[in-house]
Structures are given as structure tokens and as C-alpha cells.
């Protein structure tokens, strides 16, 4: 099964945008030009972005996001193992929640209404999940809760549906992601806000992979910034977090582990998970470029703002990175 799957993924990976492609996209003067330029290039050519005469940025972003689901189902068609499919469905829930919660983040002056949002979810599994939570009315709490719900679920279903290498790979990638997110959370709270200690705890993802409860407690109790940095450094993820921009460090660490897992375990779901990660990254990159084009920033400025670009395409020197 995996050879066919890998061939398919390899073919799809071939359509990832190169640095030159991004540069070309940056040169687009208008959104229509941007859409046309993107349509010329590989994976987005299927009319996905050819809106009307005056495409709106939001619609284009929505369509970009949809391509992730399309790619996912295309890969899913190559998987014959039903349990694997079930697990991947559960894994993909993350991106669906992301898509949903975009509407919860405040946009210029528009206060998002959590109740309204929940009402739209009524009847779905996510609604039931939100039901056992207090403080539904705060968008931020709701978003955190849905996140926690996702991780608990995927962590449970991984044990239910996966065996052997697959289970190991999933544990490694998802567990790593959870740990990194927790470290990121504690650091953000400690560095930028002074919040109650319980607030830190009630927003952690309640799963420990290689980050132990003791590590978390030490970080949570750290008094100064240097102490915190020291404690973070002492965890299993210390090396990965040397970058001062933690968000960038997080994406970098994730990209690294995805790439490594796909290389080390080609006969597993690792390439699938890696492909989805990089595809998501690419969509984020394109969205950043799209924003830059919309606000008429110069090319160099746009490229500078694209954090994930070097992760997706390797360093600018021209050395091609492989995922």
C-alpha cells in the first residue's frame, strides 16, 4: 500500500511552489494578477482561484484553505486501511477547527460572538464537546477548549487505530507538537503577561509526551526571564528553542521533525503527515504573500514577512531543500 501512496505523495510534492514561484507571485500588481500567476503554477491551477473580475482577498484565502482538504482527500483515496483512514480523519480535525476558529479571532472592531458561533455548530461533535465546558461565552476560552478537545481525541484515537511504526510516528509528531505548544504557551504567558498561575495550567494541553509534569511546574514557577529560558533549555526540546522568535522556532522544529520522520519511516503514515504539514505551511506562505500584494508592499518586504518561506523552500542561496 505504501509504495503507491508514496508515489502519489511524491507526485503531489513535486507541485510545491519553489522560491522563484514565490518571487513571481510577489511581483503581481493586483489580486487578479496574483490569482492568474498562482493558477499557472502547479497545484492551484484547477480554477481554484479564478474568481470573478474583482476577486476578494477573503474569498481567495478561503479557497486556498480549501485546497488543503482537497489534497487530503486525494491522498486518502490511496489508503486502503480503514483504521488508518479513521485516524487521519481525526488528525485532520485540527485544520477544520483552525478554519472554524478563524471567525472567532477579533477583526478590526468586530467583536466575535462565541454564542453565535456555538449555535452554528449545534448538532456536530464539536458542539457536544463544547457543552461540557464552562465559560463558553469567551471566544478565547472556546478556542482553547476546542484545541484541547482535538488533542485529547487524536491522542486517544491514535492508540485505538494505529499499531507499530505508525503509532510510534504519530506519537512522535503529535506528542512533540503538544509539548512544543505547551512550552510556547508558558513562555508567552510568562514573558508578555503576568497572569495567575492557575490560568497557565487551565490552558495547557493536558497530555505529556516528553515534557514531564515536573518540567512544566519548574517553568511555571520560574521568576525571571532568564530563569524561564534556562528551565526551557533544560527540557528535551531545549535545543530547538534557541531562536528568540518562539513561533518561528516552533514551526522550524515541527518542520524538522516532520522531514526527519518522513525520511526515516517511508513505509508509514509519516510522509502523509509531513505532506499535510508542508502543504499547510505553503498555504500560510501564499496567504502572507497575498496579504502583501493586497497592501502593495514591495517584493523584498513581502518575502521578509514570510516566516515559513525558508522552511518550505530551503535557504535563499538556491540550495533546494527536500521535505
Amino acid at each position, binding site marked *: 500500500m505504501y509504495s503507491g501512496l508514496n508515489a502519489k505523495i511524491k507526485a503531489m510534492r513535486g507541485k510545491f511552489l519553489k522560491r522563484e514561484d514565490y518571487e513571481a507571485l510577489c511581483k503581481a500588481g493586483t489580486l487578479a494578477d496574483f490569482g492568474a500567476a498562482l493558477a499557472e503554477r502547479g497545484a492551484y491551477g484547477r480554477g481554484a482561484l479564478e474568481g470573478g473580475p474583482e476577486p476578494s482577498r477573503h474569498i481567495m484565502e478561503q479557497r486556498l484553505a480549501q485546497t488543503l482538504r482537497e489534497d487530503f482527500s486525494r491522498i486518502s483515496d490511496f489508503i486502503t486501511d480503514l483504521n488508518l483512514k479513521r485516524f487521519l480523519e481525526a488528525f485532520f480535525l485540527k485544520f477544520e477547527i483552525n478554519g472554524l476558529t478563524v471567525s472567532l479571532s477579533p477583526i478590526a472592531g468586530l467583536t466575535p460572538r462565541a454564542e453565535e458561533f456555538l449555535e452554528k455548530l449545534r448538532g456536530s461533535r464539536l458542539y457536544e464537546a463544547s457543552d461540557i465546558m464552562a465559560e463558553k461565552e469567551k471566544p478565547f476560552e472556546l478556542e482553547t477548549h476546542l484545541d484541547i478537545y482535538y488533542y485529547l481525541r487524536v491522542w486517544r484515537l491514535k492508540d485505538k487505530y494505529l499499531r507499530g511504526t505508525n503509532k510510534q510516528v504519530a506519537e512522535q509528531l503529535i506528542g512533540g507538537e503538544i509539548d512544543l505548544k505547551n512550552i510556547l504557551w508558558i513562555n508567552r504567558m510568562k514573558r508578555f503577561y503576568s497572569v495567575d498561575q492557575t490560568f497557565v495550567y487551565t490552558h495547557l494541553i493536558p497530555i505529556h509526551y516528553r515534557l514531564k509534569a515536573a518540567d512544566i*511546574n519548574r517553568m511555571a514557577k520560574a521568576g525571571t526571564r532568564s530563569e524561564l529560558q534556562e528551565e526551557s533549555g533544560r527540557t528535551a526540546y531545549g535545543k530547538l528553542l534557541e531562536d528568540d522568535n518562539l513561533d518561528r522556532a516552533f514551526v522550524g522544529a515541527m518542520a524538522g521533525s516532520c522531514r526527519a520522520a518522513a525520511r526515516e519511516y517511508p513505509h508509514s503514515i509519516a510522509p502523509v503527515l509531513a505532506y499535510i504539514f508542508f502543504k499547510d505551511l505553503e498555504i500560510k506562505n501564499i496567504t502572507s504573500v497575498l496579504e502583501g500584494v493586497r497592501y502593495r508592499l514591495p517584493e523584498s518586504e513581502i518575502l521578509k514577512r514570510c516566516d515559513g518561506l525558508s522552511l518550505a523552500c530551503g535557504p535563499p542561496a538556491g540550495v533546494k531543500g527536500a521535505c
Partner: protein
Amino acid sequence: MIEKMKYVNIMGHINDFDRVVEQYIGKYDIHLENAVKELSDTMGVFPFATANPYAAIYKEAERLHDALGIKDGFFYKMDKENALSILQMASEFFQNKDVELAALEERRNLLNDFALKVEPFTGLEFDVEALEQFEFIKLRFGRMPYGSYKQFETFLHSNPNILFVDAKRTEYVYGMYFVPAESSDRADSLLSSFHFERIWISFDIDGEKQRGSFKKIYNETLTKINGLDAKIRELRREGLSGLSISNRKFLSAFNTIKELHACFEARKYAAKTKHDFYIFVGWMTEKECNLFQKEVANDDLVVVTVEDGADMQNVRPPTLLSNPFFARPFEFFVKMYGLPSYCEMDPTLFVALTYTLLFGIMFGDLGQGAVLTLAGLYMRKARGMQLGSILGIIGISSMIFGALYGSVFGFENILPALWTKPTENINNILFIAVGIGIVFILTVMIFNIRNSVSQKDPGKLLFSPHGVAGVCFYGSLIYLVLMLALKVTPALEKVLLPVLVILMAISIALIAFHEPLSNLLRGMPAGEYSARRKLIRTGVGQFLLETFIELFEVLLSYFTNTVSFVRVGAFALSHAGMMSVIMTLSGSGSRHNWLVIVLGNILVIALEGLVVGIQVLRLEFYEMFSRFFEGNGRPFLPFNR
């Protein structure tokens, strides 16, 4: 036949009302009319405005009767006071029982809630008394979402001053925590930020202290609940036996009150006068009325006047059909079209005869007819379906014609044909069919003439296409056609031919102008000026156009209705044809495939039986009923049913 009706007035003093209702109205079949409405042009007549005193107890008794599921059976008559007291007693008994049940159910629900609360903690091996003896430690029961519990676990790692004992995990984690009394406020707010919901359990139920471990308390509660459930079930099941009233006694009381209630309802129909007299107005069949009059003759307190139904000017009598046993099932078909009105002719007997005859001709098979008869008997006896009787009768007709055709289950060669084989005399069969049709059509025209006489409608009698003019025209036409077709030239021809032609011409003219002519006749007795002006409702041009089109339609319908009867012969042929197909399919020679024959017969009986049944009904309704039958009567509904 339609039963002769008598219009009956029953009068008497109001004190005597209930006796009369019980003694006469409840006993004899009488169709009561609303007396106040009937006598609306009489002064000083009022409706009874008293509410039914039995309404409440009857409703309650009916509810009990249904709730107890008492089967209807033999019951005896009982006096009013006795019946009322029995029902009163039963009603009170069950009301008390409802109160008792409600109390038991309340306690059961209380225990249920308690059990539900305790259940998650049954895994904990604490004694409740021991927990209650803490002085400096506080404890809380509750639950939190699984995710929050995991977060809390991480937190506890560095905060050892709270002791959390988890009991049961679902999507929530149930458990209890212990904290020092002085820091309990802080711990409570901390736990609540981990979404801990407190569950308040009182181990004091109705002043009864629960002791022992959670498990023991829970099990004891369950036992109590089961005991209560059993008690509730038993109370519910226990019917009248708890009151030492037998089912029959209750049933008798119930029926007594039911009758009294119904008798009182008779006041709805009665009227009363200023001088405290009551009046009943209604219809009785002649036979019933004679019996009634005989009985009432000795009764000084009741005055009865009887008038003949047909003499009544402003009220239409209701219709009650009465037919010989073999025709009675066909009332079903007649009522499907409409109940005949009182002064109309009841077509049931005619339908019974023609339907049976036509079905036999169209579906003649000795064996299949027998099957239909048996099926009809089964439907009638086992299922009580009216259609069963009809099926039984037409099955016999089918058997008779089967013998005449020499056909058994599609085998044409076993029996000799007593009359003829349809397939060998195709033309004869078709001509005979049309001949039967002509006879039927002429017959129903005569029925129409009879109906018009009793309806006192001279226009319809003389000029309608189905009246005297119609008979003259259609009869002459048929006679002419027959003479031409058979090429017989009777000696009378020279005289008869012109006479017939003139007769036809006159008839046609009468039919064409039937509307103004009828209006003229109707207007004649009054002799008013206005009647002449209303001879033609519309303008002359429009009238002529309408008349022409109508006449064309009438002539055409004579032709089509006659030809329509060809189907009777055609179906006789098609039946033989279908069976021969089945015979061919079952194999030639002496070796038949019996399965094909059986299945084929079943198919033909079901399919053709249905089609023929419908076709004959169509002939009845469309070709015949439309000529003479209106069917807007109202049914005779006796009060005592």
C-alpha cells in the same frame, strides 16, 4: 326496496319524559329529528337547556372502563341509585389510589436521584460516618471534564496541599477532594477554575440517615427502589378486586349509566312548550310504527300522531334499505354511488341481478368461479368483509357460466359446453352482449320514468333523454336497425316505417327542447306571467347553440352506451384467450407443467377477476345509474343505536 316511513309525533307531560324515553324511544328504532327545528314555524316551542346530569360520572366511568380493560360481555340491569353508588365508589377508590401512587412515585424519584448521585462514588472505600467526623478537613464531591482533570493533575504535582481522590471516569472525572478547613475557600476557587462542579449529596433522606460504605448505601437504595417499583406495579395492576366489585357488576353499572346518559341526550332532539309539554318528532318504519302504536294505545299519558312519509311536504324522510338476503351485499355498491332518496327506486335488486349476470358472462369458469366463491366465504366469515359476500355470489354466477361455456380452470376440453364456446362463436357472443345492453338501457329508462312519476317531475318524465321521449326514440331506432340488419321485411313495413320515423322526429324535437318545455309544464298550474318569460334562461342564439351541442351529445351517448356493452362479450373472449396462453406456456400434449397452470390460474383469477369486477361496476354506474339514479338520500339512523 326502501322501507315505508311514518312521520311520528310523540307528546306528553314533561314529568313523564324519562319514562317515555326509556320505555319507547330506547326500545323502538326511531330516527329522531331536531324537534325545535322541525317545528320552527310553531310558536312557543323551546329547546331543553338542561345539562346532562350523568355526563361527569359517565365520562369518569368510561375512563375507568378503558383503563381497566374490561371486556364487554354479559351485564344485567340495575337500578339507577345502585349503579351510581357503585361507580361513585369505584371512582373514589381509584382517585385515592392515584394519590397513593403519586406519593410512592415521588419517593421513588427521590431515591433515584440520590442513587444517581452516589453511583459514581461507589468505587470509593470510605465509610460515610467516618467522612462526616472530620473537623479540620473539608471535603467536596464533584466532577470535572477529563481534559481539565489532566491539567489539574499536572498542577497538583507542585501543590500537594490538596488531596484529590478520583472515583469514576467517563468524559468527566468524578471524585472528591480534601483540604484543610482554613484554606478551603482558596481551594474551592482554584478547583472551580479547573471546571470542578460540586455535587451536593445529602446522606439524610427523609430523616433517615444512610450508613456504611458508598457501595453499601448505593445497593441498599437500589433495593429500596426495586421494592417501590414492585409496589407501584402491583397497585397499578390491581383492578377492581381491591374494592370487591366484580367486573360484571361494574360493567352492569356502567351500562346502566350509559343508557341513562344516552336517554338524557334525547333532550337534544326534543322540544318543550310553555305549558310543560314535550314533543318528539321522528321517523319510524311502518312495521315498527304499528307495533309502537299498539303498545302506546293503552298509555294515557302519551299522545302519538302518525303521518305517512310520502305525504310530507317540507321534510324528506330518511332512507332505510331492505332487500332479500342475496341482494343485500350489493347495497355496498349502491351506497358507494349514493343512498337513494326516499321517493326514488332502490336499485339494489337490479344491481344484484345485473352485476351477477354480467360478471358470469365475462368471467365464466367453473373452477375459478368455485375458487372465488370459497375466497368470498372466507373473507365474509373470517374477516367480516362485505365484499366477501359479493364475491361469493358472483363466483356462483361464474360457475354457472363456466358450465355453459364448458370451461374448468382454463381446460376447454374436459367438459362439454352446455351452451356454446365463446371462442367458437365470436360474433354471436358480441351481438348477444350488445343485445343485453339494449335491454338494460331500456329497462333503466323505464326506471327513470317510474322515478319521475314518484318525484312528480313531468318534464323529466316526458322530455328527458331517458324519459318517455327517450324510450320512443331509442326503441324505434333499435327496431329499425334490427329490421335493416336482419333484412326481414314484415308486412307492416309500409305502415310502420313512416310511423316510426315520424315518432323518432317528434321525440328528438322534444328532447332538444326539453328545458323550455319542462319549465312550461312546471309553470302551468300557477299560470303566472313570469313563468313564460323564464322558459329560456339565456338569449335565443345561445340557447340554440347549446341545444344543438346537447342534442349531438345525447345522440352520441345513445350510440356509445350501447356499443359499450360489447365489452361484456369481449371479456368472455379475453378470458378464454388468456387461459389458452397459460395452457400453451404449460406445455403441449398431455404432459402439462402443473406449476405454470396453478400460477397462471392464480394470476388470471386475481388480475382478470379484478378487472372484470371493475368493468361491470363501471357499466352499472356509468351506463345505467346515470340514467335514473340520483342517490342523494339521507340514512335512517335510529336513536337507540
